Structures are given as structure tokens and as C-alpha cells.
């Protein structure tokens, strides 16, 4: 007889509206039900009533953390539809913004995971050092989030040449920070014990569940839209795809941390290579037809499809966010694990974030709440403490 543990409708770690129903026998998870739709905003329908320019602003509101990945896919989609090639300088600026966003998004995940494991120092570090990136974004775009920089055929604001040395300096500051995080995870025997071999997703399952981004790359699948289907300035810069083979939470964490090095390097190369020039083609109209746009968001591939009838509004606009496929793979990753690890595994795919939080654990027989959000956090942190004692740290 299995007991059902509901996690949600808000995820305890990342505060996202999703509802997981864990079926457990003793401490072991035997089955997982996932329920969605608590935050469905009808963006695809809404897009049909917006002009092409407005669609870019609309999709920017899909996610608050990776707010530039949906506009990136949207403009790729419109440029595919209209066979438009944006000016070189615009492509460099676009790539710089995408990479800055990847850095702050990955740092955020590492911080939250640290907090959940009882490593509040890592949490505070990541918040502190994320500011460096947010400052650069504010200087370049005027906003710390939702940058409103992209449009079909170019970008809305130019990057000031005088700012480049200062941005370079900021990137230099980021390198020791990434070393710090890498060391914090790599050199800690407790984290090894806590994360290694936990929540494994095999390469076969990764393909079968169509997962993307760091979730796929941590399972040994070498996919990255930036390399496979190059867009913006990515074909002109050197970088590696970070791949780990094990598919556990440790690999997913290391994959994200190593990607930070690549992002810093991409930004530096772009800044060095970009030359003054036009930044916008002033596109007024898009022809009838179909367009497909892809972009590599911090969480994986974003996919947009549009159908145009030649008017100023899309006739159909389809959005596929990376979490849409990644979350379903939890069904595999969480089976056979313990309740103390479950919430961490569910968060290891880095699902998109939202606001409030609520979590209760209910005993099925008398329908009584036995564990709250604070209890689950305590459970997870207590496991880390026990491990620390056992390793006499």
C-alpha cells in the first residue's frame, strides 16, 4: 500500500506552480504524477491579437528569469519567415545578452540548490555575484530583467563602445567566482555523497523523453542549438559544449557550472570581435508563410513556430519552452529515490520559476497534513547534516 505525498501546487525549492504527487512506499518513491496548468496564461492565443513587434514583448513575459530566450527564438522565427539576416553588430549584441542571461540564470539555480541542501553560504554567494552580471545587463539594456532589446532585423539599442572595457573588467571578476562555485561543489565530500548517483536519467530515457539543455547534456547527449543550428554570433566564436555522462543531480550541477566558463568566454570574444556598424534593418512587414525559430535558453532549446497570412498579426503562434519536456522526465529520474531527495531531483531540471509557495505532505489514510514546506526543507538539510557527521566534518 503506497502513501501519496503531494508536492505543490507550488514547488518548494523553485516556487513554481506545478503539482507533483509522489506515491511512496516507506521512504521510496514508486510512482509520480505531474499536474500542470495552474499558471496557463493563454500566450499562444494572445499572440494572435498582437502585431509582430508586440509578439516579441509578449513572449518576453513568458519567463522572468530567462526573459531573453523567448524573444531570441521569436526573432529567429520571424527572420526565418521573412528570410531576413540582421546586421553583424546586432548579432554580437544579441549573443552577449543571451550569455549574460545564462550566467545569472545558472547562478540562481546553484544558489537555490545550495540553500535546499543546507549550504546557505553558497546561496548567499550566488546572490552576491549575480549582481555583477545584473549590473552589466542594466548598463547595456537599461533593465536588470526583461531587456526589451530584440526585434526582427536587429536590436533596439546599441552597446556603447566606451562601456566595453568596464564590461571586460566585470567578466574578469566572474572567472574567480566560477572557480569558487566549482570548488565548492567538486571538493565537498558531503555534496558528492548527496548528489552523486541521485536522480539518474539515462541517455536512452533522455532521448525518449525528448529532454533538452543541461538536463540532456548531463546524460551524455551532445545537443546545443548554438552549435547544431547556429544563430546570432555563435558561429563566429569558439566554445565547447559541456557534456557529462552520468545523468545524476551532480552531473546536472557540474554541467551548469562549467557552462559559466563558456559563457564568460563567449562574451569576451564577442566584445573583442564586434565592430561599429548598423544595428537594425527597420523591417516593416513580414510575408505570408511559415517560420521556425530556435534558441538555446539556460534550460535548453526554446522552439517557436509561426504561421503568417501576410497581415500584421500571426495567424498561429506556437511556443515550446524547455521545461515542457524536461519536467516530464522527472517521471523516470525520481523513481526509487527517497523523499528527502525527491524535491531536489524535481528541481534539478531547473524548471522555470514563479511566485508564492505552498507544500504539504498528507497521510492518505486519515488525510491529515504531516509535513509542511519547512519540514521538507528541514528533512533535506538534516540529511546533509547526518552525512557531515558521518564523514566527521
Amino acid at each position, binding site marked *: 500500500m503506497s502513501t501519496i505525498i503531494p508536492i505543490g501546487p507550488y514547488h518548494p525549492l523553485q516556487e513554481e506552480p506545478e503539482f507533483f504527487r509522489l506515491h511512496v512506499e516507506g521512504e521510496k518513491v514508486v510512482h509520480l504524477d505531474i499536474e500542470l496548468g495552474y499558471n496557463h496564461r493563454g500566450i*499562444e492565443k494572445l499572440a494572435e491579437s498582437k502585431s509582430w513587434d508586440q509578439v516579441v514583448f509578449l513572449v518576453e513575459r513568458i519567463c522572468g528569469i530567462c526573459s531573453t530566450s523567448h524573444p531570441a527564438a521569436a526573432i529567429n522565427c520571424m527572420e*526565418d519567415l521573412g528570410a531576413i539576416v540582421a546586421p553583424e553588430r546586432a548579432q554580437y549584441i544579441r549573443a552577449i545578452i543571451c550569455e549574460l542571461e545564462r550566467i545569472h540564470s545558472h547562478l540562481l539555480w546553484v544558489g537555490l540548490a545550495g540553500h535546499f541542501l543546507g549550504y546557505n553560504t553558497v546561496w548567499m554567494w550566488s546572490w552576491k555575484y549575480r549582481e555583477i552580471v545584473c549590473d552589466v545587463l542594466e548598463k547595456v539594456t537599461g533593465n536588470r530583467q526583461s531587456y526589451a532589446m530584440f526585434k526582427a532585423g536587429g536590436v533596439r539599442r546599441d552597446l556603447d563602445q566606451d562601456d566595453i572595457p568596464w564590461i571586460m573588467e566585470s567578466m574578469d571578476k566572474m572567472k574567480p567566482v566560477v572557480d569558487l562555485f566549482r570548488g565548492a561543489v567538486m571538493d565537498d565530500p558531503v555534496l558528492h555523497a548527496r548528489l552523486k548517483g541521485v536522480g539518474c536519467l539515462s541517455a536512452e530515457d533522455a532521448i525518449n*523523453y525528448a529532454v533538452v539543455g543541461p538536463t540532456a547534456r548531463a546524460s551524455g547527449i551532445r545537443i546545443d542549438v548554438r552549435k547544431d*543550428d547556429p544563430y546570432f554570433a555563435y558561429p563566429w566564436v569558439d566554445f565547447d559544449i559541456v557534456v557529462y555522462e552520468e545523468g545524476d543531480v551532480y552531473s546536472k550541477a557540474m554541467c551548469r557550472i562549467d557552462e559559466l566558463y563558456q559563457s564568460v568566454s563567449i562574451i569576451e570574444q564577442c566584445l573583442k570581435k564586434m565592430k561599429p556598424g548598423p544595428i537594425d534593418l527597420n523591417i516593416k512587414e513580414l510575408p505570408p508563410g511559415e517560420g521556425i525559430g530556435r534558441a538555446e535558453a539556460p534550460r535548453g532549446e526554446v522552439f517557436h513556430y509561426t504561421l503568417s497570412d501576410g497581415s500584421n498579426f500571426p495567424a498561429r503562434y*506556437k511556443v515550446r519552452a524547455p521545461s515542457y*519536456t524536461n519536467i*516530464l522526465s522527472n517521471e523516470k529520474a525520481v523513481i526509487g529515490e527517497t523523499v528527502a531527495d525527491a524535491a531536489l531531483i524535481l528541481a534539478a531540471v531547473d524548471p522555470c520559476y514563479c511566485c508564492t509557495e505552498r507544500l504539504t505532505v498528507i497521510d492518505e489514510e486519515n488525510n491529515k497534513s504531516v509535513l509542511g514546506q519547512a519540514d521538507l526543507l528541514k528533512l533535506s538539510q538534516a540529511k546533509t547534516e547526518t552525512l557531515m557527521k558521518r564523514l566527521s566534518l
Partner: protein
Amino acid sequence: MDWKSIKTGLQDQFADKIQRWHEHNTRRIYLDIDAEMLEPVVTYLFNTLQSRFIIASAVDKPNNMMEIIYHFDFLHLPQVLSLRVVLSKDRLEIESIAPIIVGAEWIEREIHELFGITFKNHPNPVHLLLPDDWPEGNYPLRRDQ
């Protein structure tokens, strides 16, 4: 595997079954097929050509038609292959591909509740986004409603 061998493989295997082969550009390829050919083509793409399922988009078209476009890509290749299946609104039924690719389970549930297309042999045909007490026969993304 390169794009050339994928293209010849597909054309050899389903020569007369592909109604239209349209290359929007070198990276975006659209294939029109019959609804009953979906299962064999997807099986061939996924199992033999090792393609990766991206997503499916449903489109409500004029003239009593509905379209489902299944998007696939291939490891390390820039091409996106989109299989287009056209259905008449009088008979909105198609074979589910979730038994072949688990990753297609959610999008088929979503298309079912938003467009009213039935996926035969779907392993778990329940609501995904809409609440369980949503009225029967009310499909939010349909234009005729």
C-alpha cells in the same frame, strides 16, 4: 549521419507516400503526409534515423481543415524536419505517437483539450492544462467556437 543520407533514406522508404517535399530553406524542411502514414514515418524517423522529437503544433485552418505539424531534428544537424498531417474537422482522429516517443505524451494531451483532436491509443488521455471539470466539447483554441 548527414542530411543527404537522411533525405535519401526517407525518399527511398516512403517515395510515393510523401505528398509534398518543401524546403523553405536549407534548414527548414516541410513534408506533407497522409494521416495513416504518420505512425510508420515517425517510427522510421525515431528508430532508424535517430531523430529527436521537438514538439507538435496544431493549427486551425480555413475550409473545415485542421493541421498537426510534428517537428523533428537530428543530432548535430541544423535541419528541422516538420511532418504535416491535414485532418478534416468531420473526423478529427489520428494515431498517437506517444507509444513510440514518450516525450510526445503531453503535447498530444494539450492538443486534444485545446483543439479537440482525438489521439487513438494514447497511454494517458486526460486533461493536461485545463481543469478536470472543463465542459465537454469546448475547445479554447478552435476558431469555429
